[in-house]
């Protein structure tokens, strides 16, 4: 039921009205308002605050709210300034994150760590508010873009630049800028840019990429911008009159370097791209790519605390809860199997024992039968003996009796004979 059936194309035969959806979206977005967080990173003195003021045409950093460059820092700090700006009915809550002290120490090892920590902590805040049971409208304080200021040395990237960008390119959209571009000639700038881009590619640093669109025109513009990366910028807090026009610029004895003059620097390109055309995309990439990377890494670590690495690779497409459910089911199956096995072993052993018992019973029975038979045979034997004996006895007794009788007869005869003899004698004597 959750899988969609095949999607059919249908043609409308008349007015429906959903072409008005974009207007509805427009209306709602204006009502909600917009927010954007911009981070600026670079050594002090590179004109970061001035650039921000020039970009947003406001004194974000003024005497009342001095920019970080005016404060001396010993260690790298991360500071936020929030301002609300309005224009054409659109309200924008702008957060500028500054990193005073970056790259200013003698030993700058790990000076990127506070920056990373800040970005991660904003991701964590968002993750926590997204994960609450009771969620409300979530403010998006994640860092949407990081302007990285490269010193206009004219040679190439410094090791610190490379190190920083390598560590942060998968956490935030990095837009590298060449600061104080008015200290280089166009040719020097061109060389410098080429060198930097070469080094960026060499170190596989992923800087913010402009998205491809279906619009050919737009793609042409994007290509033009890409060719000018990194953008070389100039900022200024002062308005100067040039040829009757009031422009922001830097006054030199030899002329005025105009901030918004495309021949002088790439400021306009930066402003247009950062604010007028790609601000939404910067937010989207932060949300869909950088934040999701952070989130999936964080949740995978939690869910697979100590679990086998190979096992966890195929399971990242499930939610942790579904994961637990599955683990539970797996465990149940395992237990059932174990139970079955144990049961089998148990049955088998019982069967064995019972069989043994049966066998021993049979054996005992057999012996008993045999003994009985034996006894019976002996009985019979005895009977026979007795019978014979009785027979013998009887016959002997009969014999004896006969003998007795004979003896008696004989003795009787003898007696008779004797008597007869005596009589005879007597008779003779007469």
């Amino acid at each position: 039921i959750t899988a969609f059936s095949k999607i059919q194309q249908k043609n409308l035969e008349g007015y429906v009205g959903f072409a008005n959806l974009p207007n509805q979206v427009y209306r709602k977005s204006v009502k909600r308002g917009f927010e954007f967080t911009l981070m600026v990173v670079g050594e002090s003195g590179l004109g970061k605050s001035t650039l921000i003021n020039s970009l947003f045409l406001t004194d974000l950093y003024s005497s009342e709210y001095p920019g970080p460059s005016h404060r001396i820092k010993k260690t790298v700090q991360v500071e936020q300034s929030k301002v609300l700006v309005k224009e054409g009915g659109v309200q924008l809550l702008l957060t500028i994150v500054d990193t005073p002290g970056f790259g200013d120490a003698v030993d700058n090892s790990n000076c990127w760590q506070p920056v990373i920590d800040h970005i991660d902590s904003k991701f964590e805040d968002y993750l926590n508010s997204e994960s609450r049971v009771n969620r409300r409208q979530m403010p998006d304080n994640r860092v949407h873009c990081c302007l990285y200021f490269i010193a206009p040395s004219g040679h190439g990237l410094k090791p610190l630049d490379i190190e920083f960008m390598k560590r942060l390119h998968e956490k935030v959209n990095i837009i590298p800028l060449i600061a104080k571009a008015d200290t280089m000639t166009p040719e020097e700038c061109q060389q410098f840019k080429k060198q930097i881009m070469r080094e960026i590619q060499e170190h596989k640093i992923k800087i913010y990429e402009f998205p491809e669109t279906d619009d050919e025109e737009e793609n042409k513009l994007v290509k033009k911008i890409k060719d000018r990366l990194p953008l070389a910028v100039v900022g200024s807090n002062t308005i100067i009159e040039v040829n009757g026009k009031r422009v922001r610029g830097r006054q030199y004895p030899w002329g005025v370097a105009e901030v918004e003059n495309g021949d002088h620097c790439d400021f306009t390109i930066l402003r247009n791209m950062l604010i007028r055309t790609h601000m939404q995309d910067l937010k989207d990439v932060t949300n869909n790519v950088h934040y999701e990377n952070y989130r999936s890494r964080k949740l995978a670590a939690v869910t697979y605390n100590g679990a086998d690495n190979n096992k966890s690779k195929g399971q990242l497409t499930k939610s942790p809860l579904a994961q637990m459910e599955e683990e539970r089911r797996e465990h149940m199956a395992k237990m059932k199997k174990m139970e079955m096995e144990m049961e089998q072993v148990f049955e088998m052993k019982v069967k064995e024992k019972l069989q043994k018992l049966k066998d021993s019973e049979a054996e005992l029975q057999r012996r008993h039968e045999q003994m009985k038979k034996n006894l019976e045979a002996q009985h019979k034997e005895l009977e026979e003996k007795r019978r014979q004996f009785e027979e013998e006895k009887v016959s002997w007794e009969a014999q004896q009796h006969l003998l007795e009788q004979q003896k008696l007869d004989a003795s009787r005869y003898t007696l008779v004979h004797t008597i007869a003899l005596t009589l005879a004698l007597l008779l003779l004597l007469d």
Partner: protein
Amino acid sequence: MAATEIARQAGEGVRAVPLSGHVGFDSMPDQLVNKSVNHGFCFNILCVGETGLGKSTLMDTLFNTKFEGEPTQHNQPGVQLKSNTYELQESNVRLKLTIVNTVGFGDQINKEDSYKPIVEFIDTHFEAYLQEELKIKRTLHSYHDSRIHACLYFIAPTGHSLKSLDLVTMKKLDSKVNIIPIIAKSDAISKSELAKFKIKITSELVSNGVQIYQFPTDDETVAEINSTMNGHLPFAVVGSTEEVKIGNKMVKARQYPWGTVQVENENHCDFVKLREMLIRVNMEDLREQTHTRHYELYRRCKLEEMGFKDTDPDSKPFSLQETYEAKRNEFMGELQKKEEEMRQMFVQRVKEKEAELKEAEKELHEKFDRLKKLHQDEKKKLEDKKKALDDEQNIFKQKKTAAELLQSQAQQAGGSTTLKRDKERKKNDGCDQS
């Protein structure tokens, strides 16, 4: 300018700074719109109503296209939900429209469970979204949202009141989806009856605590039209895909002998109002409300059911990891315990069975010991008998010997034959004795 939500969220402490020129971020709404247009839009409508109330026809009329489906029969055994997805385009706006129809709703004799498949359907899609949202590797921005954004509830044009099935169903749905009640086939009701019908329906909904969707009045751009339209709810609609010639135009209409009902004539029915509100003005709001209100409610309930909760304000702030870790440990502990229990149970059984078998063995041995004893007794008896016989035999022999001796003596006194007999006797004795 009214404070935006973002500004309100930021709080009092935020300072507003003036701009000394045109910065250009007023293009943000356009940037956002471009992104949405490129991404395409998505909208899901659920039509709930008895068979034959013209749900499919109304969809066809609303979206000016012939969607799928043949009219369903009344003999469905239960309520089923049939869903179809279409890709529409108007000017540069692409819309993925999903229309879900309740098939067989209201046709059964026992309608107690009729609402269940509908609620299940809605919940299933909430669940699918929730699962996607909770995944570790997720792709929310390209996820095709399948949640129902609007539910058109079709009320039968009886002219009297809502049916109890309607009230029961709407009550079950009002916390899960935006309900827009409409009176279907309203060309069957006269104008005066219609007004009374609408009032009756509205009051019944209120007295039963059914929360229907209110067109939003917080945005001043559309507040007025929305609040007027709220007063016309429920919309009395007529749908038709047939065209009739009125004047010199072809219009969508239903032709009767007594006249022609024109769908898009606001005097004839509220179709135009429905289209205006549902599609042209508030489609995005319907989607937003579904996400921020109905889905959040579902999510909250589901998570609470599973035992998740935000820690109370005075302890440490809620940490997702800790909860997951805790849950996981609890879970693993549970599993281990179960395993242990099973093992113990087996150990117990083995013990018991062993004891049983030992008993049986003992009994067996006892039995055979008894038998053996019996044997012994028998044997002894036999021995005794044997002995008795032997004794008797011995006595007899003695007797015999004595008698024969006497006889031999007598014989000796009487001659050599007795001597011979003696000799024989002696021989025999000798034999006997040996």
